Each structure stands twice: as C-alpha cells, then as structure tokens.
C-alpha cells in the first residue's frame, strides 16, 4: 500500500499555492519592467460610475424602517393564514377556531405593543 497516505495532500497544497502565485509574480515583474504606474485623481476614486461621489458614505440609516418592515411582514403572513381560516370557518371544530383566535390574539397583542411604542408613526 501507499506508505505516504498524505503525500497527495501535500502535492495538492503546493500546486494550490504555486498556481496563483506564479501569475501574481509575473504581473509584478511585468509592472517592474514595462508598465509605468499612472495614478490620478479619478483613477484612484472609489466610486466607478462616472459620477463624482457626493457627501459622506457614513450616514445614519433610519432603523425605523426595519421595525416597520417586520410588523408589515407579520401581518402579511397573517392574511395568508386568515384566508383559508375564513373559507373553512363553518366546518371547523371548536378547538381549531380557538387555536386560530389565540394566533390572531398574539398578533394583535404585538400590534398593540408596536402601536403603544409609537412604531407605526413615521416621523
């Protein structure tokens, strides 16, 4: 059998290191012998859309939107549950109706909480 079971891994690691390094070294040699660097104001600019960037990139983002989106998502999902509940309402057992009412109550409780915290107002 193979006396060096991990030899293939070593070969693999060496190839994996050499394969990207050779082009990088070649590119560096190429830059050294042929290509003059010509940096400039627009070449070094971060934004590459042709336009000059305006203002600071580090702005405060309104976190309010996040809560708003979460509340919306919950009630969006609730409508998906309410629709089959409404269509099958007359054929449901008492336990199923109670379970559904608890589910709606939980969501209403969340809505009341968000409302009382003032998260539904966009100021």
């Amino acid at each position, binding site marked *: 059998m193979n006396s060096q079971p991990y030899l293939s891994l070593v070969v693999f690691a060496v190839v994996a290191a050499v394969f990207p390094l050779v082009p990088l070294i070649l590119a560096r040699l190429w830059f050294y012998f042929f290509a*003059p660097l010509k940096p400039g104001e*627009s070449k070094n600019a971060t934004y*590459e859309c*042709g336009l000059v960037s305006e203002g600071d990139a580090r702005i405060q983002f309104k976190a309010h939107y996040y809560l708003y989106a979460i509340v919306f998502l919950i009630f969006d999902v609730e409508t998906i549950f309410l629709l089959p509940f409404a269509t099958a309402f007359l054929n449901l057992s008492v336990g199923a109706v109670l379970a559904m009412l608890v589910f709606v109550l939980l969501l209403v409780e969340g809505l009341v909480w968000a409302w009382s915290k003032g998260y539904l107002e966009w100021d």
Partner: protein
Amino acid sequence: MSVLSDSLIEDLKKQGVLVTSIEALYNWGRSNSVWPLQFGLACCAIEMIAASMARFDLSRFGSEVFRPSPRQADLMIVSGTVTKKMAPQVVRLFNQMPDPKYVIAMGACAISGGPFKQGYNVLKGVDRFIPVDIYIPGCPPRPEALLHGLMELQKKIRAQKLTGENRAKYFDAAQPGEYPIPSFGEHDLEPSKNAALWSPAQVARKD
C-alpha cells in the same frame, strides 16, 4: 532589435518551428482579450449588443466579456451620441480604465455629432476629449462594421512596441494617464476641448 530577420522567422514557420518574442506574445495575448466597457449611449449600442450576441458573435475575437466596471475594461466603445451632459462622465470613466486602454468611436455621433451636430447639447465628436483609436462610420454601423473595427484595433495592438523610443504611450511614463475632465460652464463645457488632442481643421486658402 530582433536577432532573427523577418524572412528567417517566416522560413522557420514554414518548417514548423515557431519563434516569437515576449513583445509579440504579449501583444498577441492582449489583442485577443480586449474586454470592452459595458455602456451604451444611444442607438449604436443596440448594434453593439447585436454584435456581441450569437449571430455576429464578438466573442470570436476574445472580446465578449463586457465589463461593468472601468477597472476591468481595456476598450471603451463610445456607441452613440455624446451629449454635453454626459461628456464629463465618459471622460471620467475613460480615466478610470487601467492602461493600456483603447477607444472605438462607433457611429457618426461619436465621431462628429452626426445628425445631431447642430444641437446645442451635443458634443461634436468624442475625440475632443479622449484619444480615439478606431473610427467606425455609419448611422448606426452594422455589427459587421464593429467587428471590422475590432479587427483593425487588434492589428493596431499587435503592432505596438513595449520598449524603445516609439513605444506605445501606455508604456511611456511621460505620457499622461488621465485626461482633463470638462465641467459644466455657463454656455458650454469648460474647457470645450482638450487642446492637446484636438484642434479644428484649418482650411488652407490659395491667395
């Protein structure tokens, strides 16, 4: 320059021996991987898109990889009318491309303003601000014309020198890497042209 004469290289090639120089190899490589910048300005862009699709197949020339970033592009195909509003952006994008970089002025508008030349808002030729390598006439040029233009550009790239006196400007540290970006003035772009690149044609009158 070369140790071997051109005729000897041709003779060797007939015998199945291929000799080359680093310069020829490098130019061969980069002439067959000219990546254009992905942007279109007007109707010529539709022809450019058609040229990159299956029927005309720009990728036969190694040029199918339209780059969305100027940092990765070698070629700017100015495909369409350059308005004065757009000109600073075009020049800035060209400045952001790494050397060596090339410009194809595709269509009458990019060459001279074309049918909109008299418009107050139309730049009368993109060569007033950036150095154009290949002009493709037409309104718009057919995709075959763009292919021809690309082949002419490849010929131009293959003939470029990397070292020596008459080397290409990209390999000359003294040549500028960026071109001045015009700004919006009261009536026109300021400056209205790059004087180092373009000057109006002089009419020589006989006395």
